[in-house]
């Protein structure tokens, strides 16, 4: 999959005869981020920037920032942003969508934001089939606040609030919320991708692009869950965290398109993933 980015400055390079293969899109603001080394948020921000550039979206995008590590996303993506209270991004986006029919409406949330405090909001935005593209970053932890357990934390996983490992008896089971949402007829597209390696990142970009096109084409609610890593929160090196992502995390959260009701031959909804709590 060739990575390319249209760049207006390429013409000036004609004399150099070298050919630009990749340059970061302008909509990805040129500054160092606050994310920890190796954090998947950076990759996801970049993919969003590339897809939005490819689909010519920045000029009419109104995006909703979450509360969590990605609360500063408005410092990195050069589009109009509103900051939502923790968990409320889908409701904030609903308000935007309803009064600005022509806008491209995007939400970006972490797992605590979407699958814990914001569960009602994401469920009802999906149930209403709001024409919104939701990016849901699942790194199984509350990163910004120091590495606490999230609804998507794996069983047995140690966090600062499950110090001896997540115990289902006391702390319940990991939530596969995207599968839950996919049951709702209002959801036109639901998929789960990963930043685990170059191949996964390529496939993730296709999913994000699809989720944006669904909105452009007037479809209903679109969501892409992204399995992402949290080296610091997981207590691993960046590379180890990606191995972990490919391993037990991907096992608990199967990758792929869960439902795509937009395609003419509607892809059959994902086999109701046997929610095996002991994943």
């Amino acid at each position: 999959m060739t990575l390319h980015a249209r760049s207006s400055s390429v013409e000036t390079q004609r004399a150099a005869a070298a050919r630009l293969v990749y340059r970061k899109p302008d909509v990805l603001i040129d500054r160092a981020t606050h994310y920890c080394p190796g954090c998947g948020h950076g990759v996801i921000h970049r993919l969003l920037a590339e897809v939005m550039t490819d689909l010519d979206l920045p000029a009419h995008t109104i995006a909703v920032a979450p509360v969590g590590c990605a609360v500063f996303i408005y410092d990195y993506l050069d589009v109009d942003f509103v900051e939502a209270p923790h968990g409320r991004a889908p409701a904030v986006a609903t308000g935007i969508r309803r009064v600005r029919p022509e806008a491209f409406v995007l939400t970006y949330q972490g797992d605590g934001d979407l699958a814990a405090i914001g569960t009602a909001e994401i469920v009802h935005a999906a149930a209403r089939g709001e024409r919104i593209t939701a990016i849901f970053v699942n790194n199984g932890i509350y990163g910004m606040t120091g590495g606490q357990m999230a609804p998507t934390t794996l069983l047995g996983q140690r966090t600062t609030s499950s110090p001896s490992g997540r115990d289902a008896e006391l702390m319940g089971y990991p939530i596969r919320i995207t599968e839950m949402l996919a049951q709702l007829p209002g959801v036109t597209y639901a998929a789960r991708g990963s930043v685990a390696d170059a191949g996964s990142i390529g496939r993730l970009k296709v999913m994000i692009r699809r989720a944006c096109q669904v909105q452009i084409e007037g479809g209903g609610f679109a969501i892409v869950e992204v399995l992402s890593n949290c080296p610091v929160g997981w207590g691993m090196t960046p590379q180890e965290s990606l191995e972990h992502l490919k391993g037990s995390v991907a096992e608990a959260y199967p990758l792929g398109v869960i439902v795509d009701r937009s395609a003419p031959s509607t892809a059959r909804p994902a086999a109701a993933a046997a929610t095996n709590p002991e994943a």
Partner: protein
Amino acid sequence: MAPRQEIEIGLRRTEAELEAGRRARVLMKGNEAIAEAAIQAGCDAYFGYPITPQAELLEWMARRMPEVGRVFVQAESELGAINMALGAAATGARVMVSSSSPGISLMAEAMSYMAGSGTPMVLVNVMRAGPGLGGIGPSQSDYFQATKGHGHGDYRVPVLAPASIGEAMKLMATAFELAERYRTPVMLVADGILGQAMEPVELRFRTPERQAFDWALTGAAGRPARIVKSLDLDPEVLERRNLALQQKYREIARHETRWEGWQLADAEFAIVAYGTAARVARSAIARAREKGMKVGLFRPITLWPFPERELARMSRQLHGILTVELSSGQMIEDVRLAVEGRCPVAFHGRMGGLVPTPDEVLGALKALRGRVERTRTTTSHDPATEHHPGDASANGTGVRTGARRRGRG
């Protein structure tokens, strides 16, 4: 700038207005009149959730907003509704939410966000008895909530308190105007009576003109991206943001304080009351006047900014003030702050959804007069020993402990 003293209470009109009113007068329920006034004021989007005693407002919007091609959404909760409003308002739309006391409590966080980010919207609270699930009867026990800040942080919200359905309709346009002029959420507080009662009203509306907002999120086409937010992790920056907010609030207090005085010119005593309590007070005042007692009504229309300077000036000529509320006594604190001990401040109130009767208020007035006369004849006039506010039903919230106190409760 709106006139400082907006005397346009629905009950009192010039002859010309009465004549004009008679022509376009129709019987309307408070909730519906408020909703229609909002629509006529140019409300682009309404977000709500069912709750008594405000449900008819939502129902009116559910029917009318689609009719006029505008947005109506019944949210999954009051949390959802207020956050939808936050989103819509951030794009510059004219937005309204309505609920009642318990629902308003759920909206506290978002109100703080909107105050902090400068997002204009109007929130109508048709107050009901609390605390907790409380009851569905009329109440004013959300005064603290509305005027002292529902959510966290140093912020205030202009609070408009109509005393009639006609005035509520007028104040809807004012609410949108204040919200957009000062980039702040604005509250309009009615109570179960104002919401549920039906009154003949004139179908005369006002639509505040639109202004282009240089902060609104519309998509950064051909301009730098904009951010509507309240977060600033740098204390220096956050303090500057707060100082700007406080300056805005001083500005609002200076220009937007609204109150109404009635029969105060020769008054020796005054009742301070708003909303439904003010209507009861008027009846009591009429009776007291018949008995030769010079009593007037001081009616705040903006609960915040509270008309403290006007009340302070008034209190210099008064022997005593009676505050009447549908609560245990909340506005009384602001009254005492304004009066600063210049004259005794007594209280009469009912809770649970009960409304004080004119007789009860008359009784409280007489008790106040008796007390004033007694203290005038005795030598020392030590406010500290005054009778603690709180009458037969509303037990005083005295903090002084010890058996000695209990006897005089």
